């Protein structure tokens, strides 16, 4: 009988031993993080990942620079939600600690800049293990990641003041208490950031050599300029002896903001600025000058200057003025249409032109008078009467900026060329390359019967001002909604 039982048990034991194999279904080469550093091409992708979390310059809703300080205004909270345009809601006084707007710090592991720092740390740790790379290139890539790590720390300091310094990653399965580290005082944060940039500096390229693969990369030109910006920020009263923040202290009672103003920080910042400018000049980086195409006629005295301003921002060619391009977030159709007045060309409906980025009156006010003086300080400027209606005189000095004989506010007359080069408004003129002649620039009538009237329930400027410099001068408008834009890159 035992034999018989054995006969049954034998297949069972045989089955048991093959069971472990049966449930081991994972093939050996499922991708893991180590694969990212097995080849130079993979490591290059990881380097791109380090750049990935840089704030996209075309993200009007998610960058503090567009909305948070009244620069632009939108037409309705129903059309533009807090989720999509948090910066605008900050301008409306809705910033709060409960669900912070523009929350870069993040919660539950969602903090974008912290993730970027984590990526940079991984890259710096591992790039030296890549087998098929020369040492000098490893050093350069590591230096770029190092600069970016410092830059992400700077973005956090700028938003939050004292932060945690994450020079190295905590292992994933470490006890959570290991990552509970204290915040560091602002001065120490800036010291760390500047020190890290200085460490990276010698290994960086001086300036991009191969434009296709190197424009947008961090070079010494970029690093020196960014370092100068950071030192200016550190010297500014926001971080230099900011007594508003005297109650913010660490657990040991030490102030996190230095409470004594230090003049010397400005000296350091000035030196860094000088060094950055000289170094940029050395590498042929200088203020941008627009060159007119052959078939274009320039008559107006300020046309050249105004187009210098516009094309410095939205020129398609590499501008000599831009030190660090945001080559990832190209300002294409979606971005430029938000700034383009709908109705510039009357024979087309152009429902695709979203046209909702309205510049504020506050910003329009800040432009100087024709004498180059703030309008409330210029004795010859009729400041008190600035909102009264007036008719544009038919004179040559107004001809290229305003519609002759058109009735609009006094505010739009006798302003500096920057005003006319930057803003589009009621009674103004809009010059595009297809006009062929600056005398033929498009007249813009923002009244409800004019060509730039609100023609869609969501896409119109609520303020009556739009910004020209984000619209490439080479854009064209055809029939049947056809709208071709010339894409360009913004700078950080």
């Amino acid at each position: 009988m035992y034999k018989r039982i054995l006969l049954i048990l034998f297949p069972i034991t045989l089955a048991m031993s093959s069971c472990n194999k049966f449930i081991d279904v994972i093939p050996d080469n499922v991708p893991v993080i180590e694969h990212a550093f097995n080849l130079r091409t993979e490591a290059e992708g990881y380097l791109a990942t380090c750049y990935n979390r840089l704030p996209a310059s075309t993200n009007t809703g998610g960058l503090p620079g567009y909305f948070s300080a009244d620069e632009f205004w939108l037409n309705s909270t129903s059309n533009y939600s807090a989720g999509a345009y948090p910066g605008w809601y900050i301008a409306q006084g809705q910033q709060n600690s409960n669900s912070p707007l523009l929350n870069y710090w993040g919660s539950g592991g969602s903090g974008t800049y912290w993730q970027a720092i984590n990526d940079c740390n991984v890259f710096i740790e591992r790039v030296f293990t890549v087998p098929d790379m020369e040492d000098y290139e490893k050093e350069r890539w590591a230096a770029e990641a190092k600069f970016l790590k410092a830059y992400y720390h700077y973005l956090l300091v700028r938003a939050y003041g004292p932060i945690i310094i994450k020079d190295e990653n905590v292992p994933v399965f470490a006890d959570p208490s290991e990552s509970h580290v204290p915040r560091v005082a602002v001065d120490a944060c800036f010291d760390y950031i500047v020190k890290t940039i200085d460490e990276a500096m010698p290994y960086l390229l001086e300036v991009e050599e191969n434009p296709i693969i190197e424009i947008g990369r961090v070079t010494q030109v970029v690093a020196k300029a960014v370092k100068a910006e950071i030192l200016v920020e550190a010297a500014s009263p926001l971080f230099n002896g900011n007594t508003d923040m005297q109650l913010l202290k660490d657990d040991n009672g030490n102030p996190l903001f230095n409470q004594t103003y230090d003049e010397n920080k400005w000296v350091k910042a000035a030196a860094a600025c000088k060094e950055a400018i000289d170094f940029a000049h050395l590498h042929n980086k200088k203020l941008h000058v627009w060159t007119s195409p052959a078939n274009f006629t320039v008559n107006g005295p300020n046309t050249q200057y105004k187009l210098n301003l516009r094309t410095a921002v939205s020129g398609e060619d590499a501008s000599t003025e831009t030190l660090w391009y945001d080559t990832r977030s190209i300002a294409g159709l979606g971005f430029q249409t938000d700034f383009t007045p709908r109705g510039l060309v009357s024979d087309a409906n152009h429902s695709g032109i979203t046209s909702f980025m309205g510049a504020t009156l506050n910003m329009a006010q800040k432009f100087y008078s024709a004498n180059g003086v703030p309008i409330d300080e210029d004795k010859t400027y009729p400041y008190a009467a600035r909102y009264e209606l007036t008719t544009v005189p038919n004179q040559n000095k107004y001809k290229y900026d305003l519609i002759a004989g058109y009735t609009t506010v006094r505010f739009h007359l006798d302003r500096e060329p920057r005003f006319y080069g930057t803003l589009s408004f009621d009674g103004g003129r809009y010059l595009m390359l297809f006009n062929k002649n600056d005398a033929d620039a498009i007249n813009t009538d923002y009244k409800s019967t004019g060509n730039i009237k609100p023609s869609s329930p969501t896409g119109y400027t609520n303020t009556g001002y739009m910004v020209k410099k984000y619209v490439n001068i080479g854009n064209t408008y055809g029939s049947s909604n056809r709208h071709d834009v010339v894409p360009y890159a913004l700078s950080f």
Partner: protein
Amino acid sequence: MTRNPLSKDATYSLEKIDKTAAGENPTLYPAVDWLDFVTRKVTTTQNYNLGISGGGQLAKYNVSANYTTDNGLLKVEPINDFNSNVRFNVFNFLSNVDINLTKSTQLVARVKANLQDYNGPPSSGTEAYGQAIRSNPVLFQPVYTPGENQSYIKHPLFGNFDDGQYLNAYAEIVKGYSEKRRSNLSFQTELYQDLSSIITEGLKFRGLLNVTRRSYFEQSRVYNPFYYTPVIDPVTKQVSSYFQLNPQTGTEYLNFEPGKRELTAVVYGEAQVSYNRTFAQKHGISASLISTLRNEVFTPQDQDENSLIKTLPKRNISFSGNASYIFDERYYAQFTFGYNGSEKFAAGSRWGFFPSFGVAWSVHKEKFMEGLWPTISNLRFRATHGWIGYDNISDERFFYLSKVDLNDGGRGYTFGLPKTGSYLLSGVSIDRYANPFVNWEISRQTNLGIDLGMFKGALTFSGDFYNQFRYNIVQNRAAIPASTGLQAPVRANLGEYKSKGFEGELSYTKSVTKDLYFQGRGTFTYSTGEYVYYEEPNFQYDYLSRIGLHSNQVRGYIAERLFIDDNEVFNSPEQQFGGEPVLGGDIKYVDVNKDGVINSNDRVPIGLPTTPEISYGFGLTTGYKSFDFSFFFSGLARTSLFINPIYYDVDDEKYGVAPFGSVAAPNAVLQVWADSYWSEEHQDIYARWPRLSQTPTNNNSQTSTFWMRNGNLLRLKQVDIGYNLNQSILKRYKMNGLRIYFSGTNLFKWSPFKLWDPELGGYGLGYPLQRVFNFGININI
């Protein structure tokens, strides 16, 4: 004004409102009842059955087939030359053959086929319902009939507005049709071998092998509708023609749209050895060992970063056994175990051993109970204690492995300028960190039960009380701060949860006379639970903790009432939710911790769990001569319901109940809210809807007691009335049976919450449970 202080354009002019109300010119001033327009009220279904069985000593066979046709309730556009209504055919086939190979060996072969053919509109019934709810009722008609001057148009003139971006439910439903085909085939062989005469008395072997193939595909053919708006002749003030709104995007021809495709192959095998014998007429021993093996292979339809993982076979393997001993049919003891292998864990944690023990006592078999028979015909006490392991810790397969995308376009970067040429690099992202420590979730459960039968089994009762402690629950580590920069949550076996409950079932059967009988039954279950441990950050206030709460306990704000006006808002604690400024008519919350701001520190547990703690049912079946009648009620109690005051919930992929929400596809407004809302003219601080807004504001869509309701429910689930034709009449027409019946499902409900069916939860505009009346004839030949 209250909706949006910045918006100067009123959506509807007074003239439009007046003329729409007057209803004189429906082409220019439409008022469309979309739901009514797209649906019909009555439809038919047909059901055919065929069964054949027979056989002899050596073999037996049994073949049955079943065919059902369901027709949908949607309307069809006559201009289209295809039928877009729902037609759903199901065909089932089943064949069993039992062959006696030897005296002690039996072989069973089963074949099962299930074929489903679905033709219907491009959107499903649920979607079509939602589209009807979100089509604007006053801007356009569903479809226009062109006049003589436009009779050359060969496609339907669907109504729309502006640039044609509005939702037209009718166009969505009739713009094409979709086909879905599903087939499930299963082949099964079973072998029974009695080993009594070969090895030892009472030993048996059973083997089973099942092969299943499932296939499914769907595809649709749709055109892009052309949308029109009426043009008014300036002289006659009548509609002269219809203007095409979307000449670029519309098409007259059908386009092919591929849908889901799934193919699955499953192999399942089972082997069992069992032993069952009684010694000396008093000692009953039984034991068995079962091993099972399952392999499922699936092919994903799309090529994405998960496809490799999806193609890997899903495998389970288990060994289980039990041994029991019965003494004199009175005392009973049992031991069972499961030794389970799971592919979901790292190599060291794949196998788990989970034992359980049980005892039972059949009291009615005792001598001292004999006097009580037949009043007490059955009385039995049961107790078990055991462990169970769960490997279902996550929706993600291979949770223990890291998931890295080495070619993530979204995490890459581009260098170079548009003009000079650019260099695009994909980046690296981490969706999951390797987690070699993750292990089985385990529950330890104790059951105490009683079975009672009285009056020869006419009255039966069975009740079970259980107490469960579940531990090693996988949860996200809450204590890891954002500043670590991890891209994915880290999870570990941390949580502990205890629950207890009671289940009972009671039934009573009585034959009053030869012609009249009653049968009643009722069920009742109660369960509740609470977290014993849950990893949380160090909260400033105790009431923020989840420990001690039910897993479905909702936390939210306590709503006081609505703000009477803006001044009250400025003089009250600041309500920090971001989004639009808080204004008069918005919900006012209680500052629980009295710190002068309303923020997440003011959230407290509110209401009862969202899953009912009590569910019950009762019903009666009775027959008198050829008539029969039955009904069944079911109910839920001790639960809260939260109205979802938003437009669309991205996580649940469902539309909420907030009015408007989107310009092109606005949610319908329920009458209760149209009748009672805060407005500047009527500052009702106890209105049922706060200040209206085009899109719900952050302040008003917080989870709070304002939206909390009692979710209790009692429903008359089913009523059947039938009449079976007399045997003698049947014989004349050579039939075996003829039954005429009427049945209704979901006929009535009683609930303190009146706005919609509480079983829809917070999504009141979802597809409602339907009240269905069936009238039918069932003929057996």
